């Protein structure tokens, strides 16, 4: 039978709609499974004003045989086989004649008991109880109360439509009684619409300007955009994130094309598109990275016959552009040198000082990085960029559009004639903002971005600010992720540990916690960011563990390690190599370190292993230091036969102490070499299962 639930609300934020629909689906599935109601179909739909669940459910639970166990057989019958007092007592308690009882075999022995057919409950009865609980159990990132009620929800619930088998399913949730009607679009059809079935409901709503299917609304938006742009002969490159937001932000999409005076095209693309996106959620129309004097907007309506919506939006956008133009001109009246002293007034963090202090530190970190990654050529420009990169925090434009920080600084620097390397580094130094965002394209930008991020990480952790699951006010996780991403994208080789030392040393006394402690924490912190990145890239968890286990001091190498392991995993060598590594590991467990004495190798097999190992080591070490872990792995595999012979013929744990220790020392050397490639003991192979 058809089940239909619609929770009608005031406008729920788009992200809340998505989580609500997921939760509704999960909770209904769980409820129906646990109450053993057969489900043929269960679907959800949603807009900002309604959360909908539709299902095809059995009319009721299946009937079930229920067994009630009474007294043990031995107690239940008198010696003559007639029912005992205990048996009569049980029958009475169950309100049946004693004749209805029967002997039931259980694991614990035989008992007298009663078999009953338990009639399944009607689905309606079960839903009546569970729906209010499900609705009340939905959770949102931020919840609210309204009126006199005690319910907490994303936004006020105004109506609940619930039908089962074409009839009203009556229940109430904290004063809201379920109904067999809903309302249409809030402007076009706020009156009641009665309905009996999902089909009727969906069609009636469509007519009343509500499209409940998110996929349908998405299609409508994209198709209309294409139509509107067709006369301009433009290809549509809609900002998909914004489309996604809008899909859940309205009930009936209407796309309109608007324009603005060409004089504003003098403003940079970044400023124009931000002015459009933020607030009015408009799409900029772009050809070859050049802004055209047009925009697209999406209204919650089905038409705009008098172009009122378009004209209204044009007016609002023009006002924003007037502001932006004003800021652009005002800001450019001052040179960076004139503005820079203002950074003293902006606090980065109370204990860590102002943004001027930060800029001074960044100059030093940037200089260090340029030396380490052999980027001497851009050192001078990178340092200059470090000095200037935060100045845009003082501009009217960044105050108006905070998301443009960095970019604005870069644009102003370009306008003022600073070298391209400087302006580009400033422009890019917040990138990447997430894993999806791009790393800085320039090396100077990459260096400055890393410097800014490491400075924040060690500083904030250094004054004892704790990160919790939900709280990361300075975005340290994102910062660490950014550093890792830049290193991987740019294939940079540098020692993380010394990088941290340097950043900490530059802070000097300002950092209160012991530097070693901060460093240890940071190494762990980076390790978990890397794990996250590798998981996102789809590598197997045990390969990730093995690669990270070999150390993350060189972040780029840790990635080469995962890649090498991943490439090896399908080869025939994979399993034997890992088993060798594990065997070596096992034998060495709890052994102190010993030194090899080549003169003490007496047996042929150990002499052979030692010499094979020496050759392998000589060859493999340069590969490892070059980061060629694939080649190193292949080469190291040549130890297999000597090592197998060694294990077959030689008693490692010899009686003679010196011999024993020398053999252990050889194995330790092998282990050490293996460990420079990966911690193979972390890898799970078929052979072990």
């Amino acid at each position: 039978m058809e089940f239909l639930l619609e929770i009608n609300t005031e406008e729920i934020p788009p992200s809340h709609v998505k989580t609500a629909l997921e939760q509704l689906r999960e909770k209904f599935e769980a409820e129906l499974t646990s109450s053993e109601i057969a489900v043929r179909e269960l679907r959800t739909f949603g807009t900002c004003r309604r959360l909908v669940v539709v299902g095809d459910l059995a009319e009721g639970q299946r009937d079930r045989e229920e067994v009630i166990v009474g007294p043990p057989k031995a107690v239940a019958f008198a010696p003559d086989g007639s029912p005992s007092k205990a048996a009569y007592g049980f029958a009475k308690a169950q309100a049946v004649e004693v004749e209805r009882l029967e002997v039931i075999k259980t694991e614990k022995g035989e008992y007298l008991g009663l078999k009953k057919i338990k009639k399944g409950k009607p689905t309606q009865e079960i839903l009546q109880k569970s729906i209010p609980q499900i609705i009340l159990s939905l959770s949102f990132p931020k919840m609210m109360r309204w009126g006199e009620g005690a319910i907490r929800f994303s936004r006020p619930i105004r109506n609940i439509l619930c039908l089962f088998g074409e009839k009203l399913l009556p229940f109430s949730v904290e004063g809201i009684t379920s109904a067999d009607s809903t309302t249409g679009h809030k402007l076009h059809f706020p009156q009641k619409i009665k309905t009996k079935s999902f089909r009727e409901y969906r069609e009636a709503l469509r007519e009343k300007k509500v499209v409940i299917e998110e996929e349908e609304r998405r299609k409508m938006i994209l198709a209309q955009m294409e139509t509107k742009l067709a006369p301009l002969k433009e290809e549509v490159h809609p900002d998909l994130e914004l489309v996604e937001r809008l899909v859940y932000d309205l009930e009936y999409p209407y796309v309109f094309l608007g324009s603005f005076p060409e004089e504003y095209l003098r403003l940079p693309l970044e400023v124009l598109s931000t002015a459009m996106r933020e607030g009015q959620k408009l799409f900029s129309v772009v050809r070859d990275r050049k802004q055209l004097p047009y925009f697209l907007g999406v209204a919650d309506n089905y038409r705009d016959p008098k172009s009122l919506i378009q004209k209204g939006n044009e007016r609002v956008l023009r006002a924003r552009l007037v502001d932006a133009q004003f800021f652009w001109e005002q800001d450019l009246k001052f040179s960076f040198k004139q503005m820079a002293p203002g950074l003293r007034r902006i606090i980065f963090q109370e204990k860590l000082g102002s943004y001027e202090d930060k800029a001074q530190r960044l100059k030093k970190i940037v200089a260090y990085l340029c030396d380490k990654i052999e980027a001497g050529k851009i050192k001078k420009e990178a340092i200059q960029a470090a000095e200037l990169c935060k100045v845009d925090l003082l501009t009217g434009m960044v105050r108006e559009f905070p998301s443009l920080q960095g970019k604005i600084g870069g644009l102003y620097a370009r306008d003022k004639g600073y070298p391209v390397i400087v302006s580009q580094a400033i422009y890019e130094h917040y990138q990447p903002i997430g894993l999806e965002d791009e790393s800085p394209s320039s090396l100077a930008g990459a260096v400055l971005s890393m410097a800014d991020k490491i400075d924040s990480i060690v500083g904030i952790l250094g004054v004892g600010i704790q990160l919790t699951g939900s709280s990361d006010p300075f975005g340290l996780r994102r910062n660490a992720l950014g550093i890792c991403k830049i290193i991987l994208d740019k294939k940079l080789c540098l020692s993380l540990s010394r990088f941290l030392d340097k950043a900490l040393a530059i802070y000097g006394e300002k950092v209160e916690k012991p530097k070693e402690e901060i460093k240890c924490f940071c190494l762990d912190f980076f390790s978990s960011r890397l794990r996250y990145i590798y998981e996102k890239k789809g590598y197997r968890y045990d390969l990730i563990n093995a690669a990270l286990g070999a150390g993350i001091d060189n972040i780029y190498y840790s990635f080469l390690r995962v890649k090498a392991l991943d490439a090896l995993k399908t080869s025939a060598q994979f399993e034997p190599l890992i088993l060798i590594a594990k065997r070596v590991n096992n034998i060495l467990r709890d052994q102190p370190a010993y030194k090899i004495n080549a003169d003490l190798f007496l047996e042929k097999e150990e002499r052979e292993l030692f010499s094979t190992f020496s050759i392998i080591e000589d060859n493999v070490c340069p590969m490892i230091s070059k980061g060629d872990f694939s080649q190193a792995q292949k080469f190291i595999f040549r130890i297999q036969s000597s090592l197998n012979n060694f294990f077959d013929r030689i008693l490692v744990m010899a009686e003679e102490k010196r011999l024993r220790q020398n053999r252990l020392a050889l194995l330790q050397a092998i282990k050490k070499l293996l460990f420079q490639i990966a911690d193979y003991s972390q890898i799970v192979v078929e052979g072990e299962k």
Partner: protein
Amino acid sequence: MSIQNLIINLQKFWADQGCYLAQPYDLEVGAGTMTPDTFFRVLDKRFWKVAYVQPARRPTDGRYGENPHRVQKHFQYQVIIKPSPSDIQQIYIKSLISLGISLEDHDLRFDEDDWESPTIGAWGVGWQVLLDGLEITQFTYFQQAGGIDLSPVPVEITYGLERLEMFLEGKDNIYDLDWSSDTLYRDLRLREEKEFSEYNFNQASIEIIQKSFILSEKEASRLIQRNLLLPAYDLCLKCSHYFNILDSRGAISVTERVKMIARIRALVTQIAQKYTAKEASL
């Protein structure tokens, strides 16, 4: 429709909804929310319906009368209804229709925008209402004020009168708006904007304002001890306004900002607690 007719229309509409029509409060406030007709009345359990115009001062928004949209003083139309009625959104929509806006030809959106005023320990959940992309109203279900959970929950509807009027007249410049049939916004407000911008940004004596802040703070504290909560609250409003002027003079660093706001909030929180305790014992 002129601004004064807009006000007359809204007064009529909300009076018909059973609201008591209050008059503007006679102290500088940053928003209608801060006036006693809102702040105190949302704290207790009693039902409350009020509507009024409230001038709101935001010194940093001053532009010497040169920006067509930003002013250091603007007018809000403030509505508080406690508890929030279940059809309040439709009532609000009707209020727009009553102004002669044929909404079916427009795009009316409730865009997620939770509101917060750390100075008076208040926050709420709601939307900015956009009409063809123009923000005309802040629509909020008040959750806390003075650090106290509000129950029943009031709804606060704050119309930006100038914004709404710009929509109604289809004008791009605030100073071109008609206040009445023969008086322009410019005639009434331009000189005030110029002079106050100069005062707020350049002339206000930092020393005197800082002292005034401290004196008002002390006095508020003393009055709280004497259980004179309404006068104490007035002094908090003065503190808040002095704070805003210091801010526009660029005399407050980021850390000082947080500390000064916390100082005012501490006083306001005490006032709210004492006020509700008193209410409960009545």
